[in-house]
């Protein structure tokens, strides 16, 4: 088969065809930047035809804010270097900025001297915009993960922590650096701590899902060793051919506390029903025994040993009756009928009641401040204050000072009672309002529990602490009228 072209011509023609058909813009220029060749992709990319550009300086498409770029490239070329994948901007004829990746090679003459340069420019505008979209999307995901209140923990297939979010740092009290690279079982109490590796192996071997895709309530352990309930859901993913697991932990502390409170309230309702029955069934026979023993006592010789014993029996019956009364008051507190009331007047009455009892003769009570009228059932409020004052008086063993300070803000009246007693140790403080828990050798442990129930029925609040200055401080808040 014969060809109409000489081999040299043939090679040039093929080369020209390649250049013309290239997706990339291919431009040849002399050392001073004069354009010698401009293929059709260059026409497409920059909007100038070859006719417009050949003979013109390449500077036409270089942004004015990059004046030295051409010179820099020329310098590198003159040293015989190639410039590879140099990412920059060019200006198209219509002013559009084109993101390009340039590969520039020197053109040498027969003697090997550099006489010009050939540039292959690839339009990377689309590619870059995709990269930016990806980065944006990743940033969005990252900010969701970072902002999540829930803890998010990524582990590998051996249970080693790879990443944790700030939510997890907050939940557990660890910094990310402290946990990354550690076995995730460090965040679990026993028996899960010891069993977790086995759980994971079991899953990897059998594929049996116990938690993945199901989620369940588990117990987690903070850095300080305290535990808390969480809902854990686990997702599985494959990254670079390795299995990873993402755990999302939702703190259930508040919910569990609320459930506990609801259970307590339900128990109180049952206790209230029981107390009402007991109260009746106990008070009736108490009344019978008390009445009969009083009649019998009246017939005994005055001053006799028997008459004294009868008096003692009656006192015991009254103690028993008070116990039933306290239980009833706690378990079934009367519904308050709140009316506007002067808290200072209620306190004054209460203080007088305390003073009437000789056992508290050594207790000095001072009161300062005032407040606008509060909304309260005065009779119930007296029970509250009597209980608090007697508690303080007993804590001070009948000797000391109680200071009462009354103040108010926009919605609440604050009554602060501070005594000079031994104060309330933190371990007692936690159980202060638990019914039937008492630190006294005799007592039902119902006083403060009842006080709190009565205050809650008033939409009020009570807190007890020990200030640095010593003693116990009781802070009561009640809504203003």
């Amino acid at each position, binding site marked *: 088969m014969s060809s109409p072209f000489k081999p040299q011509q043939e090679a040039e023609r093929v080369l020209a065809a390649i250049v013309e058909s290239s997706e990339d813009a291919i431009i040849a220029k002399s050392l001073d930047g004069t354009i010698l060749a401009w293929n059709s992709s260059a026409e497409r990319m920059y909007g100038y035809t070859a006719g417009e550009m050949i003979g013109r300086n390449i500077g036409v498409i270089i942004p004015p804010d990059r004046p030295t770029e051409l010179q820099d490239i020329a310098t590198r070329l003159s040293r015989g270097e190639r410039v590879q994948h140099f990412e920059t901007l060019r200006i198209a004829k219509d002013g559009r900025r084109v993101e390009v990746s340039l590969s520039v090679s020197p053109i040498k003459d027969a003697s090997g001297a550099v006489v010009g340069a050939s540039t292959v420019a690839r339009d990377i505008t689309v590619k870059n915009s995709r990269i930016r979209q990806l980065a944006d999307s990743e940033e969005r995901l990252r900010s969701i993960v970072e902002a999540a209140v829930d803890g998010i923990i990524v582990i590998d297939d051996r249970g080693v922590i790879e990443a944790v979010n700030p939510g997890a740092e907050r939940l557990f009290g660890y910094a990310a650096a402290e946990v990354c690279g550690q076995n995730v079982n460090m965040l679990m109490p026993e028996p899960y701590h010891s069993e977790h590796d086995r759980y994971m192996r079991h899953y990897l071997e059998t594929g049996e899902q116990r938690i993945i895709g199901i989620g369940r309530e588990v117990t987690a352990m903070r850095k300080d060793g305290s535990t808390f309930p969480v809902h854990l859901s686990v997702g599985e993913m494959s990254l670079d051919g390795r299995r990873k697991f993402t755990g999302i932990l939702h703190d259930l502390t508040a919910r569990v506390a609320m459930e506990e409170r609801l259970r307590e309230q339900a128990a109180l309702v049952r206790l209230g029903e029981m107390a*009402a029955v007991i*109260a*009746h069934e106990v*008070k*009736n*026979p*108490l*009344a*019978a*025994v*008390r*009445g*009969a023993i*009083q*009649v019998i006592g*009246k017939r005994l010789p005055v001053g006799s040993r028997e008459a004294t014993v009868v008096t003692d029996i009656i006192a015991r*019956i*009254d103690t028993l*009756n008070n116990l039933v009364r306290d239980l*009833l008051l706690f378990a079934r507190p*009367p519904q308050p009928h709140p009316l506007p009331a002067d808290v200072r007047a209620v306190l004054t009455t209460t203080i007088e009641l305390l003073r009437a009892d000789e056992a508290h003769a050594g207790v000095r009570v001072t009161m300062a401040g005032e407040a606008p009228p509060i909304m309260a059932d005065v009779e119930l409020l007296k029970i509250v204050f009597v209980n608090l004052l007697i508690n303080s008086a007993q804590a001070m063993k009948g000797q000391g000072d109680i200071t009462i300070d009354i103040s108010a803000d926009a919605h609440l009246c604050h009554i602060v009672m501070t005594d000079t007693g031994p104060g309330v140790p933190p371990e007692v403080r936690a159980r202060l309002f638990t019914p039937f828990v008492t630190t006294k050798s005799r007592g039902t442990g119902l006083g403060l529990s009842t006080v709190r129930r009565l205050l809650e029925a008033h939409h009020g609040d009570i807190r007890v602490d020990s200030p640095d200055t010593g003693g116990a401080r009781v802070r009561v808040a009640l809504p203003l009228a």
Partner: protein
Amino acid sequence: MTKNSSPPRVLVVDDEALIRWSLAELFTDVGYDVTEASDGASALTQVSDGEAFDAIVLDYRLPDSNDLLLLEQIRILQPQAAVVMMTAFGTPEITAGALKLGAVRVVAKPFDVHDMVNLVAQAHGFKPH
């Protein structure tokens, strides 16, 4: 009001025998003529058939009565009688209801029997012996 010639009459209504006994003993001691009833039905018989009472001590809860209906009937049949109610577990509602129906006082069980006798006597203007 008590007739000067005859002793005042009191009706003690309670299903608890010891309460009836204690009150009967003390009322008798201070000069009362005491009648006892252990349930609502016999109390009602006493107030409808018998002579007028000066005072009635009435338990809120009886085997056949657990509301204020009995008090209401007694007040209609013997409006002159001073009625003192006793209750082992009184709610503010019961107390208010009883006072509204004309009871002199609602006394919580257990109580001091001497105080009860004095209260009853005072309620109808009788000076105990």
